[in-house]
C-alpha cells in the first residue's frame, strides 16, 4: 500500500478501493446448532438472515430469538474484525488508520511524550 505521509489523496483512493472491497465482502455467522445464519457485507450492512428449515417447529419463540441474536452478534464481531484489519492497510501520515483508531493519541500523553519526564531528582 502506498504511504500518504504528505497528501490525503493516496488515502482517499485507498479508502475508495477499500470501500468497494468491503461492499463486495460477505461475512457469514451462525448461531449454535446452525439454527440461524446471518450474512453481512464488509460495511456491516445485513444482506440476509436465514433460519434452518424446520427450526421454528423444534424451538420455541424465546429460543429462536436467542439464536437469531447470537448469529447477529457473531456477525457484528466478525465485521468489526474485518474492518479493523482492512484499515490496517490504509496509511496516513506514517501510520495506519487502524492503528490510530486502536491507539488514539490523547493530549496529555502527547505533551508528556514530547516534553519528556524529568530525570531523578538530586
Amino acid at each position, binding site marked *: 500500500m502506498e504511504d*500518504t505521509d504528505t*497528501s490525503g489523496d493516496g*488515502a482517499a483512493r485507498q479508502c475508495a478501493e477499500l470501500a468497494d472491497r468491503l461492499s463486495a465482502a460477505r461475512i457469514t455467522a451462525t448461531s449454535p446448532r446452525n439454527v440461524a445464519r446471518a450474512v453481512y457485507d464488509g460495511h456491516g450492512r445485513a444482506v440476509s438472515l436465514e433460519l434452518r428449515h424446520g427450526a421454528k417447529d423444534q424451538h420455541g419463540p424465546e429460543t429462536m430469538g436467542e439464536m437469531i441474536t447470537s448469529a447477529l452478534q457473531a456477525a457484528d464481531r466478525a465485521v468489526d474484525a474485518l474492518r479493523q484489519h482492512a484499515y490496517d492497510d490504509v496509511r496516513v501520515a506514517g501510520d495506519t488508520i487502524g492503528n490510530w483508531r486502536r491507539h488514539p493519541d490523547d493530549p496529555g500523553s502527547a*505533551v508528556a511524550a514530547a*516534553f*519528556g519526564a524529568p530525570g531523578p531528582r538530586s
Partner: protein
Amino acid sequence: MTGDMSELLATLPADLRAAAADLYVKVVAIAWEAEETLGIAFQVLREARGEPELLDTGSELLERAVAAELTAARDEIGSAGNRFSGSWVGGGAESFDSYLPKLMAAIESMEESAGKTAEAVRLFRQALTDLWQRIVERTWHTGGEVTAAVAQAGRNLAVAVPLVLGIVDRYAAYVSGIAAALLELAGNEYKAGEKLAETGALPGVADLHDPRLPVPADQAADPSWSDADREDNWRPGGELRMDTAAMATMIAAFQENGTYWDNADRHQTEAAEAHLTPRAFGLGLDFYTDVQRVMTRDRSLYRDADARMDSVAGALSEIGGLYGMIDEDTTHSFNKQMDDQ
C-alpha cells in the same frame, strides 16, 4: 472554502496548513456545520506552535555571545592573575590570591547559567517541535478518518454526517487538550524546566566576599573585620614586595573587564527582548516566565559583577600606588600601618 477560513489557513505554518486544508475540504463537503469548530481548533494551534526560529536565535545568543563574553572576562582576569601570582608579597596578598580562584569559579558558574538557560530553551524548542509534528500527523490522520467515514457511508452520504461531526469533535477536543496541557506545564516537571531549575543553584560573583585588601591609612577599614580577620589576612609578614608591572596588568584586567560584562548584559537583553518573547514560546507561558526570571537575575548579576570589578580595580590601584612609593622606610611604616589596623 469561505473567505474567513482561507484567511485563517493562510496564517498557519506551512506544514499544518496543508493538513488543515485537506481536513477542512473533506469535512465541509459532508458536514458544513463543523466549519466553526475546525476554525477554532486551527486558531488555537496557530498560537500553540510558538516561534521555534526565535527560540533558536535566542538560545544561540545566550550560548555563543553571552557565555563567550563571560569566558573572555574570566580569561582576561585569569591570564593577568597567572602573571601576578607570587609577584606580590605583603598585606592583602594572601587574601587576594585566595580570592582570584573563587572569582574564576564564580564567573564560570555564571557562564554555566547562561549555557544551561540556552540548553533549557533548546530542550523546550525541541519538545515543542516534536509535539507539533504529532499535531500535524494527527491532522492528516483526522482527514484520513473523514475519508474512511465517507467511504464507509457509500452512496448514502447522510450516514457520514454524524460520523464526520464526531471526528471533528474529537479533533477539537484533542487540540484544546493539547493547549490546556501546554498551559499547565509547570515548574521543573519536564526536561526543559528541570534544566532551567539547575541555574538556580549556581553561585555568582555576588555570592563572593570581596577580597580583603589593605586600605590606605586615610580610608576607614571595614568595621566588620575582627582581630582574627586582620591576623589572618592583613599581617604582611616580614617581607614586602611587588612586581608593579604585573600589578598594573592585574589592575588593567579588572578595569577593562567591565566591557565584557556590558557586552554580556547587552546580548542577554537582546535575547530577552527580541527573541525569547512570549510569542516565541507559544502556549508555554509558564516556561517563558521562568526563563525571563532567570535572565533578569543573571542580568542583575552581570551589572553587579561589573561594579565589583571596578571596585577591585580601584582598591588594587590604591595599593599599587602605595607600593610604587615604597622604599625601606616606607616599607617599615606600611607594615606597621597594617599591623596597627
